[in-house]
C-alpha cells in the first residue's frame, strides 16, 4: 500500500487551490484503457458528505480531445472514495471525431500517444448547484504493452528435468514497479489447460518476480515422471493484472534412456513357454538353470509376420553355472518391429529345445 501511495505521489499530485476533492490516478496502469479511467480514487477533504458527478476528459498531444466521460451522480463521503458502480455503469461517454478516438472506441484501450487525463468533480445535488469541488490533471506517455511470450520449457516439450527453470520474454515497455507471477499446476488427462489452471491446486504460485526467469522454487516438490504441467506468467502492478502470457504445457518424460527401474522378475523359461502370450518390452527376460559349467546360450529368432527375416548379430548371452536370470536386449536390433510376433527358440543346457512365442514392443 505504501508503495502504491508513493507512486501516486511520484505521478504528481497537482492539487489545485481550495480543492475539496483530490484524485489518485496511476496513469501507467489506469491510463491504458477507457475502463481504467473509472478506477480513479477520490479523497474528500470536506467534513460533509456530498453528491457529485465526475467529468473525465482525455486529450492527446497531437490528436487533441479523445474522449470525455461524465458519471451519474454519486455520494462522496469524507476520506477515500471510489466511483460508485451504478454511477460508473451509467456514465455517459463521448468520443471525438478523429482516428485515435475511433481506435479507442473499438479497442477500449489507448493507442500510443502523449495523453493528458483531467478529472473534474462537480457538486450535483438536487438544488442544481454545480460547484467545482476539485480538478486535477495527469500526463502520461502511453505505450501499449507487447505480449508476454513464454520461452522455456517449450510448449508441449517433453523434458527430463524435474525441477526446470522457467524463462519468458518480458512485457514491454517495462513499467516501474511491475512484477511477474508464475503459476504452475498439474494438468489432468481430461482437462483443458485453462481448466487445469483454475481447478487444480497451484504447485508453484510465485509472486514478486522481477527478472524474466524463475529457478524452480527450492521448497517446492519435484515434478513427477509422466505427468503434464501447465504454466502461465502474469505481469501485475499494485494488484492490477496488466497482461498475461499464453498458457503452455510440458510433460516430464524421460524415456530416452532406461529408467532406474525395479526388475519385472524372471520366470522360468519352461513356464514362459507354456503360456502362449508374452510381451517383450524391448527385452526378453527369463530364468534358466544350468547345472553344467559356464556356456553360451544357443538361440534363434523367427519372425512370424515376416518369415523370410534373417537375424544377424544376435546379442551374445552367457550362462553361469547354477541359476541364471537372462536378459536379452532386443531394443537395439534394427530388425525387430514393434507389434510383430516372434518365436524364440533356445537350446537349454540339458539339451532340450524350448520355444517361446512373443510379441515385441519397442521401448521408445
Amino acid at each position, binding site marked *: 500500500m505504501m508503495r502504491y501511495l508513493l507512486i501516486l505521489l511520484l505521478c504528481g499530485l497537482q492539487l489545485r487551490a481550495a480543492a475539496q476533492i483530490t484524485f489518485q490516478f496511476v496513469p501507467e496502469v489506469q491510463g491504458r484503457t477507457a475502463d481504467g479511467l473509472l*478506477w480513479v480514487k477520490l479523497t474528500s477533504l470536506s467534513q460533509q458528505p456530498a453528491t457529485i458527478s465526475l467529468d473525465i476528459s482525455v486529450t492527446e498531444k497531437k490528436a487533441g480531445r479523445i474522449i470525455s466521460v461524465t458519471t451519474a451522480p454519486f455520494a462522496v463521503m469524507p476520506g477515500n472514495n471510489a466511483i460508485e458502480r451504478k454511477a460508473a455503469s451509467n456514465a*455517459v461517454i463521448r468520443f471525438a471525431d478523429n482516428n485515435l478516438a475511433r481506435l479507442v472506441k473499438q479497442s477500449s484501450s489507448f493507442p500510443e500517444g502523449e495523453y493528458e487525463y483531467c478529472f473534474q468533480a462537480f457538486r450535483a445535488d438536487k438544488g442544481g448547484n454545480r460547484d467545482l469541488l476539485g480538478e486535477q490533471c495527469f500526463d502520461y506517455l502511453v505505450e501499449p504493452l507487447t505480449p508476454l511470450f513464454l520461452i522455456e520449457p517449450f510448449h508441449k516439450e517433453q523434458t527430463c528435468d524435474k525441477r526446470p527453470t522457467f524463462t519468458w520474454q518480458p512485457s514491454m515497455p517495462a513499467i516501474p514497479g511491475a512484477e511477474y507471477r508464475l503459476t504452475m499446476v498439474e494438468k489432468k488427462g481430461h482437462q483443458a489447460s485453462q481448466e487445469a489452471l483454475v481447478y487444480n491446486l497451484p504447485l508453484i504460485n510465485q509472486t514478486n518476480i522481477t527478472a524474466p526467469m524463475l529457478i524452480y522454487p527450492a521448497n517446492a516438490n519435484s515434478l513427477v515422471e509422466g505427468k503434464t504441467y501447465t504454466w502461465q506468467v502474469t505481469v501485475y502492478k499494485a494488484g492490477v493484472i496488466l497482461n498475461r502470457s499464453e498458457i503452455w504445457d510440458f510433460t516430464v518424460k524421460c524415456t530416452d534412456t532406461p529408467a532406474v527401474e525395479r526388475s519385472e522378475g524372471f520366470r522360468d523359461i519352461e513356464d514362459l513357454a507354456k503360456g502362449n502370450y508374452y510381451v517383450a518390452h524391448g527385452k526378453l527376460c527369463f530364468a534358466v538353470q544350468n547345472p553344467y559349467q559356464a556356456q553360451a546360450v544357443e538361440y534363434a529368432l523367427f519372425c512370424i509376420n515376416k518369415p523370410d527375416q534373417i537375424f544377424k548379430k544376435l546379442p551374445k548371452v552367457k550362462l553361469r553355472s547354477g541359476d541364471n536370470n537372462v536378459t536379452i536386449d532386443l531394443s*537395439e536390433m534394427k530388425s525387430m518391429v514393434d507389434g510383430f510376433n516372434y518365436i524364440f527358440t533356445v537350446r537349454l543346457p540339458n539339451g532340450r529345445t524350448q520355444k517361446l512365442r512373443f510379441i515385441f514392443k519397442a521401448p521408445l
Partner: protein
Amino acid sequence: MFLRHATLMRLLAGVTLLCLMETDAVAQVQDSLKRSNTPLVEQLKSAKPGMKEVLSEAEMHKFNNIVETINKRKRFLDQLPANIPGTNNLINLSKSQSPFSGMKDSVMGEFLHYVGNNFGKERVNKLAKSLLVSGDSAGLQKYLGNKLKGFYAIKGKEAFQIPSFESLVDNQFKGAQYSLVRDNTALAPAGWMHHLSASNDMMIMDIPFHFELANLSDTYMPLRYNNLVKVSFDKDAFKGRMQQKLAKYYDLEKYLLNEVDMLSFVKKHFEQELTSQVEGLKSSLVQNPKAMLFSKFSYDELLKLDISQVKEKLMPADMVKGVKEQIGVYEDVLKNRASELSAVQRDSLVKLVTQKTEHLQSLDQLVTKVSGVKEKLAASGLNVNQITRQQQQTNTQTFNRWNQPSTIKEAGSNLLPQNGLQRFFGDISALNIGTFANNKSERSINALISGGLQIEALKKSSLLGGGLGNIKDAGFLKDAGLQSSLTAAVSMQYAQLGKGTTGRKGTTVTVMNANTYSPASLYYEANNLARNIFVGTISKSFSVRKNGTVEAEVSKSATQFRNTASVSPDQAMEQKSALYSYAEDLLQTLSAGVRYQDDWEQIGLTHNAHVAYAGFGYNNPGNPSASKGSLQYDLQLRKYVEKKKGFLQVQVANRNYNYSADGDQRWKNFQVNLQARYRFDRNLTLGGRINQYQLIRKTATGNQKMYVSRKIAAEGQYSSGLFGLHQRSVFSVGLQQFDNVYTQQGGNSSLLLTQWVTSILLQQVQATVSLFYNKELTENKLIGDQLNAETGVGYTIGKKIMMNSSLTYLDNKLAARQLGTRQSINMMILRNCSIGAYIDWRKNLIEPINPYLYGNFRGELTVQYQIK
C-alpha cells in the same frame, strides 16, 4: 471353356458378395479388389457390359440371401405370442412381395415380433397397412430392409425385448481428494491453501454425464470463485455404451454384412469344385474318393499345401515304392513261373496286380484332380495368400467402420429402441455446463467460461452450436491477492453454424455478442464502462495432400459503448448495439490468419506455417489473449531422423506490432529457436538448443534494442552399470544471456546454468544426487550465484508405504543460505484410499534478503479416495 467357367465363377463370387453388401461396403470391396490387383473386377466388367448392371442386379437380390439364411436358422422362440393385429397382411404379402419373398411364415412371425416389441407394435401395424396400400414403396423397403438386417444379426432370445435403457439413473462416484498446503514464503499469495475435488459419473437413461467439482480456498483471503463445477456430456462414454449394448444383442459383423468371409467363400467354392471332380473317380476300388481324400487332409491343408506336398501325403514315396515292388514281384512270378501256377492262382495274381496298379492310378488321378482345381483357382487370381490378405484388409475396414461415430449412431438408431432424449443426445457432440474451457479456434472462441453453457450438435455433416456465459479474468485461487484486471469481464452469447467435419474439411461461421459488466466484491473490483461487442468469424479448413491441413480464419469485431452521446451539445444518444456499426473501421477491427500444417512421413518432416494480421481495434472477448495491432508470421519445422531416434527442430517467428494511430512506431519481435536431439543407443542421448528472442523498437529516428534473451545449451541422458549397480544421469549445461534496456541500464547479464542428477538403484533403495548451479558471469546480477543441492533416498516399507528422504542445501551469494530436509511419504491405507504428505523444511543460515523467493517451510497433505 475353361475361361468361361472361371469367368462365371468369378461373376458368381462377385454377385454374391455384392448382393450382401451395402453400397458403401460394395465400394470398399471394389476398392480393395482394385488395390490387390486381382483380375476379378476386370473379369466382372468383361463378363457383363458394366459394373452398374451387376450392382443393380445386386440391389434386386439384396435381401434374398438374408432371407435364405434366416429361413435356415434355428428359431429363437419356442412359441410365438399372439400376432399383432393386421400383420397377417404382411405375412400374406411375404409370399409375393419383396423384400420378404420367400420368407417362411414362422420366420416372419419372429421378425414381426422382434420389430413390434422393440420398435412399437403400432408401428408394425401401420407398416402392414401402408405396405398393403402403397405396395412396395422405396422408403418402406428401406426401413424394413434395415430392420431385416438387424433381425438377421440378432444374437439370441434377449434381442426380442431390448430395453431402451438399463436403469433410469446409475450413479458412479469416481473419487475425491483433499489437499492442504502450507507455504510460509513471505508474500506468498495464499499461505494456507485448501483444495477439495471430486468427480462423478452419472448415467441418466444410459446417457452419461461427468461431474467435476472443486473447492479451492485460502484461509485468509476470501476468493471470488471458491466453488467450481463442470458438468459435461461424455460423448465417448455414450458411444462406448451404445457399442456395448449393440454388441450384447447383435452380431455386428453380420450387421455390417461383413461375415461374407471371402476366404470361406473361396473354400466353399474349392470344396464344391473338388467334390464334383473327385466324385468322378468313383470306382469299385475307391468307393468314396472324397472321404478318402478328406481322411488325409482338411480343406485348409488342401488349399494351402503345394501339389508336391499333397502328393507326398497322399502317396508317400515309401508306400508307392512298396506297392510297385510288390507289383514287380507279382509280375515276375506271372512271367517267369507261369507254368508252376494253377489257373486260380494266376487269376488271383493278375487281379492283385490290376488292383494295385489301378489303386496307384486312382491315387494319381486324385492328385491330378486336386492339382487341376488348385491351378484353376490360382489362374482365376484367387490364391490363398491374396485372399488372406484381402480378408485381413476387410476385417480392418470393418473394425474401423465399426469404430466410426457415424456407424455407431446409425446402428444405434436402427437396432436399439431409443426414447426422445436418447435420440437427441445421439446428435449432440458436446455439452458443457458450469466453468469450462471452450477452445474452438483462435478467433471464434478460445477461453475459460464461467457460469456457462455450451452445446453443439452434429447431424450428418452440419454443425449447429452455441453457448453463453461469462469470460472474466482473475478471482481464482491462483490470482489470490490480485484485485483488478485491465481485461474487462464480459457476459457473452455465441452461435455457430457449420458444414463439413471439423478439423479436416469444413466451414464454420461464428457470431458472438458480448456485454461488459463490472464485477465487484470485497477483494476484487473492476468498474468497466458498459459496452456491447459483436464479433463475426468465418473459419475454413481443408486438407492438403495426405496429412496436411490448411486453416484459414477471418474475424471482424465492432464495439459500441452503451451510453455514448454524440459530441454535439444536444446529447443525443447513439445506438447501443455494436451490430449497427459492424461495417465501420474495417481494417482496424479485422483479424485474419492462415495456418498450414503438414507431415511428410517419408522424409520425416513436419511443418507448421502461420501468417496472421490483426488490427489494433480488433476486440474479441471470446479470446482475451488474441493478438491485436500485429502482423506476424511464424514457421516451425521438425525433421525426424532414423525412425524418430533423433530430431532437429527450427522455429522462427517474426511479429510486428503497431500500436500507434499513425503507424510511426513499431515493435518488432523476432524469435529463432533451434533444437536437436539424438538417441545414440539405449544408454546415451544427447541434445542441444540455441535460441534468441529479441524485441526492437522502431522509431522514426532509428531502431532501439529493448530486450534480448539468448541461450545456448547442451543436455544429455546417460545410463550405465556402475560397480554392478544401475545408474542413470541427466545433465545439462547452458549459457543464458539477458539484455534488458530497462532493468539493466543497457548492460547485460550472463548466466552459466548447470544441472546434474544421478539416480542409482541399490537393491530396493533408489539413491539420488542432484545439483543445480548458476554462475553469474557479468556485473549485472540477475538472480545471483546459486547452488541448489539435494541428496536423498527413495524406499518402500512393506508393500504399501513409499518414502523419500533428502537433505537439501541452498546457497545464493546475494540473497540466502539454507540447509534443510525434505521428506515425503505415500501410503495406501485402504484399497482405494491413499495418504500423501510432503514436508520441506529449511534452516536459514543467513537471513534471506528477498524472503519472498526463499520460504523455509512448505507442507502438503493429501488424502485421496479413488475408485478405479
